[in-house]
């Protein structure tokens, strides 16, 4: 009898465990709608800066509960693909513009057109335009922050070398970099990264911002435009810098973080980076006396526009709630504060942003973004990750002298034409 009772209890326990795994409580009317937000912002902003927004939203919107899921940037793509494949992707996702075409191709994103036109609280004309551009007839992304590529320079190194002002043109850049290079002291003029590791692209980070200052483009009329005189002269410029010995050695195996580290430790006097690095540099080396200047130009002041965006999962079961959250974060009441805590500029240009004027380095970035031509092409390149890697393979060969810039440009163009056809 006792044995039978014991067996019965055992069966009941097993059933409870199994249904506990697979069962879920039914949602009753009046209960909160739960939405998940997958992003990499929290690790980069810091917990205190980030969590307050989730708390604020949940407090002011008692019928919706946002749960933030944080992943380092390097793992975002993998996480998104795996979660989407098993139907467990979050409702709102932090977005990086270069991933746009890939996500459209697999039908992962919900088009935002209808939500934008129905939302009377959000004035789309006040939002930064690059992410809002139509691709294949729809708007896919809502901007959360705005910034651009800029040149960081080490003011102490400049003073030591007797250089009064940061360079404005490519010629000045070459001269300045040469004066700043002292190999015996392990100091170099410029650092860049050409590693094929990971999914951070060298082409869009090291080449495109320079390319835009020549007036050139990587994509023209939805077709690859890499076999162009402007790209060839940009590749030549990078090769000349390398041949002049002004670039820190090891670029081919250097990932992007190491480039920032080299600048922070004073080994490189200049590098091209994005605005969020301001906070990174300040925390890595508080004694670093660094300045910000526009990217040295060939013909015109231009730079690559960037920022953090938000997208909605097409498989989300709570799309309206997801949109409410997205719209809230992009609203002029909240966006300014969010951008400030993220160390970037607001995507909503109507938001209050007193913090810009209070920080001279942020003021400088704001000035650059208002006076330069802002270009954003990565969201139009199919399979951007693969395309960037394919082009970087040839860029590496230009660097080592294996290929001349014109030859590399031709091969890059051919590779991209194949990738564009797979669209």
């Amino acid at each position, binding site marked *: 009898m006792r044995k039978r009772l014991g067996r019965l209890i055992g069966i009941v326990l097993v059933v409870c465990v199994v249904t506990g795994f697979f069962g879920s409580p039914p949602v009753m009317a009046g209960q909160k709608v739960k939405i998940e937000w997958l992003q990499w912002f929290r690790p980069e902003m810091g917990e205190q800066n980030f969590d307050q927004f989730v708390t604020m939203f949940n407090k002011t919107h008692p019928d919706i509960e946002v749960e933030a899921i944080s992943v380092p940037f390097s793992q975002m793509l993998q996480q998104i693909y795996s979660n989407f494949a098993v139907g467990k992707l979050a409702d709102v996702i932090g977005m990086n513009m270069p991933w746009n075409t890939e996500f459209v191709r697999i039908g992962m994103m919900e088009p935002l057109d209808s939500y934008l036109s129905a939302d009377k609280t959000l004035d789309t004309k006040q939002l930064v335009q690059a992410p809002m551009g139509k691709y294949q007839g729809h708007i896919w992304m809502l901007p959360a922050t705005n910034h651009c590529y800029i040149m960081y320079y080490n003011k102490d190194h400049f003073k030591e070398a007797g250089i009064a002002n940061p360079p404005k043109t490519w010629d000045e850049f070459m001269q300045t970099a040469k004066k700043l290079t002292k190999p015996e002291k392990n100091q170099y003029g410029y650092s860049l990264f050409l590693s094929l590791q990971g999914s951070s692209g060298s082409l869009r980070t090291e080449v495109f911002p320079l390319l835009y200052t020549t007036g050139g483009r990587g994509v023209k009329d939805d077709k690859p435009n890499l076999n162009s005189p402007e790209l060839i002269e940009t590749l030549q410029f990078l090769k000349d810098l390398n041949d002049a010995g002004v670039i820190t050695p090891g670029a081919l195996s250097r990932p992007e973080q190491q480039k920032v580290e080299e600048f922070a430790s004073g080994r490189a006097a200049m590098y091209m980076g994005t605005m969020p690095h301001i906070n990174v540099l300040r925390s890595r080396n508080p004694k670093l006396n660094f300045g910000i200047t526009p990217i040295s130009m060939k013909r015109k002041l231009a730079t690559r526009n960037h920022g953090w965006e938000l997208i909605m999962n097409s498989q989300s079961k709570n799309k309206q709630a997801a949109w409410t959250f997205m719209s809230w974060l992009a609203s002029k009441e909240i966006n300014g504060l969010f951008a400030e805590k993220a160390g970037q500029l607001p995507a909503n240009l109507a938001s209050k942003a007193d913090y810009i004027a209070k920080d001279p380095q942020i003021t400088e970035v704001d000035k650059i973004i208002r006076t330069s031509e802002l270009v954003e092409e990565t969201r139009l390149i199919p399979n951007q990750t*693969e395309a960037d890697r394919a082009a970087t393979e040839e860029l590496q060969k230009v660097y080592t002298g294996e290929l001349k810039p014109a030859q590399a440009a031709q091969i890059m163009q051919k590779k991209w034409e194949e990738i564009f056809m797979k669209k």
Partner: protein
Amino acid sequence: MVHMPVTPRSMQSFVKHATPYAFVGPAIVVLVLLLLFPIFRVFYNSFFDNTLVVKTPHWVGLSNFTQLLKDPVFYVSIKNTVVFTVGSVVLHLIVGLVFALLLNQRIHPVALGFFRAALILPWVFTVAVVAVNWQLLLNPLGVVNYILKACHLIHSSIEWFGDARYAMIGLLLVNTWRGYPFVMLSILAGLQSIGAELYEASKVDGANVTQSFLHITLPQLKPVLLSIGLLDTIWTFQLFPLIWLTTGGGPGHATEVLATYTYKKAFESVQFSMASTIAVMILCVTSVMTFFYLKQQRMTE
């Protein structure tokens, strides 16, 4: 009295036979869920044009396999995988053997304990730590280049992981450093099981150190060396984290191995079916190697 359809005795016999299966049951469930099902799924996926990210996958039969066989990067990655595997295993065996012989000496137990612990350390660190550490060591401005230049062995710094000529050498160096402890421990166990009387007898016959090593130690170690060599080959053949975290398969495709190529196909080109195809190829090769390993194990038993 109700006539029971099953007699108590056959019920007892059933329970007696079923009990072992009940014990093994959970392990089998885990194996099926985490091993057999994914393997089956990968096989299955390799016969479609793309899976996981498309709504309607189309059956393409063996077309992925024929496409793969026409891919030049596939052959480059096979070559690199073979070079890396053979190189690593040979170096592991040599370095492992040398250290095992050293550890087998009769020295003060405290010193022996210290050296044993120190020599196992490379194996203890996680791959990410090993990768970052060695990236710094092999950096053009790093310690290794400094020492080589100070000893006048090179004129200018070598970009170990950034130069197509040296990247594979750098990788072999790191993997040898990381992998020798396991081999060393296995060989040490083998050395300690060699009877002392064999060495005594050879000393009586007038054999010197080299002769006793070549004619006693090595032959006695042969089963261990073969076994550990095969195991190491199977593991190194599919090695991914160390290569991904140091060179990412680059520069270009200089250190592209089958594992990194699979990853890129899956998460960069978003072609999960093609990635599954490469994974199936890897599985076939490692299955053959495992078959030989098991056969060798059975022979020694």
